[in-house]
């Protein structure tokens, strides 16, 4: 059972590598931001599987903090794309 979970963990980590491909290769700026957004969500899944593997719960705290920081970062990047300042 733990072996199968290991395989799932490696699959999840390689999926985040696909997002890195989109960040590096993306033809336009919004494509790269899509890659950053999806990468931030996938890392939470990696954190959850690692917390099952090791049996420790503090790794889920890292996941929650990562979600919130990724949310704020994506909102800031979207505001930058519209070309306005942050307070209008």
């Amino acid at each position, binding site marked *: 059972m733990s072996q199968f979970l290991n395989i799932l963990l490696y699959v999840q980590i390689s999926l985040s590598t696909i997002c890195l491909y989109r960040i590096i290769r993306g033809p336009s700026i*919004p494509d790269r931001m899509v890659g950053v957004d999806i990468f931030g969500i996938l890392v*939470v899944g990696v954190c*959850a599987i690692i917390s099952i593997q090791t049996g420790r719960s503090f790794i889920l705290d890292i996941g929650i903090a990562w979600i919130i920081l990724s949310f704020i970062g994506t909102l800031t990047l*979207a505001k930058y794309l519209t070309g306005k300042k942050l307070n209008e």
Partner: protein
Amino acid sequence: MKEIISIVFITVGVLFNLLGCIGILRLPDTYNRLQAATKAVTLGCCSILVGVIFHFGLSDAATKAFIAIPILFFGSTVAAHALIRGTYHFGITLGDKCVKDDYKEAIK
């Protein structure tokens, strides 16, 4: 029994993530990529967290996963909406095969 349910939820989640990442690689347009990836990947990671809840039972780790699910769900969808709006205002046009653009009349 608990282990089996948890493994099933995590497997379904990783499959959804796989489909979303194939969408990121293969789809032709920025908007297509964003909508495919955000829906599939958000649902997949929520499913993985549900698997974590089933694995740990009634403990602190399950509580943390239970808190993480709504934050992930609402946070990522709102962020994707803002990102797609910013993309439109940035000047990226729709793809060649797209036939209808309602937002163009809406912001006029």
